């Protein structure tokens, strides 16, 4: 366990160093902290004064160290768009994005597991052909197109579901704004979360199916038949538990990809999350906000990867034992 922890911490540190370098470069190259602090209408003399005061004429390594120490204290600069600390802005938008990704992941799991397993154990059935056919189409349609098609069908044509915003939200103790506590909020969640899930769902169906079909060919599955086990146990315990290992690994990576695609989904659905804000920050060159976004997303990546590794260890006894030593 200790070795595992050290390795994880090392990887996390490496990722964060890379992110900090990227962020520093972004800030140094295109950022304008003077504007962030004092606004656009400041005279050149005043600017020069501020620049000296802020240490912007210092050598680069010194500036980088200062950037990292500030970041470690949670100070990622001021967002000039909002006139607030950039980190606060991002964290305020975090619940919207987290709930969107969470619901998309739920869609993916709830749909891909039964479909993938079914397609693996009934490879020749009509339903399997349909599932596989649709999934191939799904893989190749871009997310924004799916989003637009969904909006057109369910919002414009049928008028069943809202197509923008989060709807009614409630602030939970601790400051988390949730859209999942009201019926209106849930209705607003449907289309964005399906759009985001459409990116990963077909991929997962195909992955689960192919992994499971491979496991079903293995000797231990044949032995499970020879032991006279009921079919459900062979499929759901023997085959599926082994299928999970590669699925968890890929799943971790996909959560990262989904996080990236929230930028697109949130923009299409006017979803007030981190991704939506990020795109605005890009348009307005609000570098502090960009940096805060990158740092938070980087931390999420590291966190997700750690959780995925831990879950993997729970399923795979071999990892567990090497960890124990």
């Amino acid at each position: 366990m200790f070795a595992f922890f050290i390795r994880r911490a090392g990887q996390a540190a490496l990722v964060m160093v890379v992110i900090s370098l990227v962020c520093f470069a972004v800030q140094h190259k295109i950022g304008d902290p003077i504007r962030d602090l004092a606004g656009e209408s400041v005279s050149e003399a005043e600017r020069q004064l501020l620049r000296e005061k802020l240490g912007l004429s210092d050598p680069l390594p010194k500036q980088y160290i200062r950037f990292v120490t500030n970041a470690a204290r949670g100070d990622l600069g001021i967002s000039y768009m909002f006139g607030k600390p950039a980190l606060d802005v991002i964290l305020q938008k975090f619940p919207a994005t987290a709930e969107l990704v969470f619901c998309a992941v739920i869609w993916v799991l709830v749909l891909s597991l039964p479909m993938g397993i079914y397609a693996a154990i009934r490879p020749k059935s009509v339903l399997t052909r349909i599932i596989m056919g649709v999934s191939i189409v799904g893989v190749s349609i871009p997310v924004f197109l799916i989003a637009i098609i969904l909006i057109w069908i369910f919002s414009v044509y049928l008028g069943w579901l809202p197509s923008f915003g989060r709807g009614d939200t409630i602030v939970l103790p601790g400051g988390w704004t949730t859209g999942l506590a009201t019926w209106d909020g849930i209705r607003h969640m449907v289309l964005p979360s399906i759009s985001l899930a459409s990116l990963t769902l077909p991929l997962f169906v195909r992955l689960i199916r192919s992994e499971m079909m491979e496991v079903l060919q293995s000797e231990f599955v044949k032995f499970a038949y020879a032991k006279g086990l009921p079919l459900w146990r062979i499929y759901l315990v023997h085959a599926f538990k082994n299928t999970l290992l590669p699925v968890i690994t890929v799943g971790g990576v996909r959560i990262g990809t989904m996080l990236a695609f929230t930028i697109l989904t949130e923009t299409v659905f006017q979803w007030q999350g981190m991704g939506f804000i990020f795109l605005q920050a890009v348009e307005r060159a609000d570098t502090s906000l960009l940096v805060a976004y990158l740092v938070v997303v980087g931390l999420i990546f590291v966190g997700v990867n750690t959780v995925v590794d831990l879950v993997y260890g729970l399923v795979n006894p071999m990892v567990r034992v090497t960890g124990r030593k």
Partner: protein
Amino acid sequence: MTPETLLQVKDLEVTFALRSGKYQAVKGVTFDVAKGERLGLVGESGAGKSITGFSIINLISQPGYISGGQVLFEGRDLSKLSPEEMRSIRGDRVAMIFQDPMMTLNPVLTIGQQMLETVRAHRNVSGDEARAIAMDKLAKVHISSPERRLKQYPHEFSGGMRQRIVIAISLLSDPALIIADEPSTALDVTIQAEIMELLLELCESDRMGLILISHDLGVVSQVTQRMAIMYAGYIVEVGPTAEIITNPSHPYTQGLLAALPGLQKRRGRLNQIPGVMPGLTSIPPGCPFHPRCQSVMPVCSEKIPALCDHGAVRVACHAVTQEARS
């Protein structure tokens, strides 16, 4: 079928429907096993031994299927049972031991889970009772501190230990017949003998029937009372082990015996039979062994020899029957 007959395989045929056509991997195989008897199935790789063994419990994987014959076991034709009836016999009355213990056990389940699920697939017992049965069987295969072992995963055991565990699993329901497909082939030479001894000991003490499948005539001859030699899907010679070992009739059996390392005259090299077993799609006409046979006659490439009584054994060979006639 006498009251002492446990298993009777009659004219068994197994067909593989491949893309290029249908091919028979097992062709009219007939043999029987008495209660508590140990029968060997011997032949080079590809002879159809495993397919024969698996078809007894109707466990041939696609695209293979039983295309003819009967598998009479305790009065029932197993090849005609419903899937659920067949399931209730597998692992209960008929158990199997596979070749490679590294692959047979599920890597993500504990030994306990894999044993208990087997007990409970066949008997309505509590978890504690099932655990007691599992520990009893582990002790029977000489695995120490069974209680602790139940919590361990397969990768925590050596190959030999894993095969003992597989054997313990096969014993869980006190089967009447065990089919062991090359049970020691994948193991270290030193451990092979231990596993065979263990199997022999268990079969004798519990009066279990055994079908021992192996390419190694030497191993089979030490454990079994009777054996059947297979070649290209046919049984070419079947009879008491002692008789076949001391006085092999079929040229193929003679070839296998001559290739045994222990029986080699010191000529410095193994007396392997020249050539190889034909593949499923390229079995020659007539006697399938004729391209490799040293006693080959003109008729051999035209007519398939039938299995005929020859003293204490049954043999399928034109040369043997002709010699007997003259």
